[in-house]
């Protein structure tokens, strides 16, 4: 009797439990993979947005006091990146704006802010629909002095 019991295989319940455990682990790992992929895409987009913001800020500094606000007169000012791979197409629009505010206590200084908004897979973005979406932003600030 004892010998018969020792050589017994797995019963259905044990097999089902094992399969469920395996499936849970695999699904969890796949979710982790997807999360990592999304995080990688996000960091790539943040890097591009920072690049765009840095270049525009450099141009503002080069233009100097009083001239930064006129740098990009075309609206909407944007850089569009369309990526096509074997897994599909992805579009990210980096829309930017320059705002210039006077310094609260000095007429010889102005605060320049460069804001880059970006969203994935949204195609063309215009003023009417941009704010209603889950946008992400990179923002740079600097003070420009009238005397350079």
């Amino acid at each position, binding site marked *: 009797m004892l010998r018969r019991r020792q050589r017994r295989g797995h019963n259905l319940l044990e097999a089902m439990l094992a399969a469920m455990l395996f499936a849970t682990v695999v699904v969890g790992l796949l979710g982790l993979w997807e999360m990592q992929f999304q995080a990688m895409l996000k960091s790539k987009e943040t890097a*591009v947005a920072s690049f765009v913001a840095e270049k525009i800020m450099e141009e503002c500094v080069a233009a100097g006091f009083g001239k930064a606000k006129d*740098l990009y*007169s075309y609206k909407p000012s944007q*850089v*569009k*990146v*369309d990526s096509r791979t074997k897994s599909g197409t992805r579009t990210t629009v980096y829309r930017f704006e320059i705002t210039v505010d006077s310094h609260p206590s000095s007429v010889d200084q102005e605060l320049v802010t460069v804001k880059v908004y970006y969203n994935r897979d949204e195609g063309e973005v215009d003023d009417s629909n941009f704010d209603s979406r889950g946008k992400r932003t990179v923002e740079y600030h600097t003070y420009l002095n009238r005397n350079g």
Partner: protein
Amino acid sequence: MSLYCKEKSRGTSLFEMMIVIAISSIILVSIGNLIRVGVDYYFYSTAQIEVQRNALLSLSIMTQELTGSTYESVYTENSAPPTLDPNDGLLFASAVNEDGVDTDVAPGHQGYPGDTVRDSGGNLLWINMICYYIGEVDGKKALLRTRERLAGPPFSTNPPDPVALGLNDIAHFKAIVSPVGFMARGITKMKTVEKTDALEITLTAEVKEGRNWLEMDVSTTIVPRN
């Protein structure tokens, strides 16, 4: 008892060995494939980042140069006869001195390279025509830049019209041997669309690494404002 002993001393059968080898082979081949895919993807990602950075940097440099130009002096092959490839060149005038220390371009001009050249009245003096085009370097497509100095001094304060000057020929600029600037590799197409007082530029970059490929369009709209 005798049965038990016999069972214990029995070795591995050929069938068992074959199963073990088959399973080991499947696992090893899978791991090998996984490593190969990983290495391929690493090289693909590196190439992708490089090409994306090149495209963005080229677009940024073009934006800076074009904003310093004037809309009247911009020429794209979209306006050329349809026999030409409409999307492989862009031409515009520049008032920036690129010829080293050169005090002859205008009276009172300091002559340093990178200076924007103006006359005594503060008007821009147009001294160069700049051309961006898609060419080939070592058999691979790339974005190239060349320029030609306009006739002068004296240089004109009126924005030069490439058509009136007979310079509306991208092929002429492509034939210039020096100076040719290598802007970015992996850029395979340049598309320009003329809008009212603005120009939309799209650069297409391509990457192929192993079984992975990427085609990327980077575009922006530029207003030549001088």
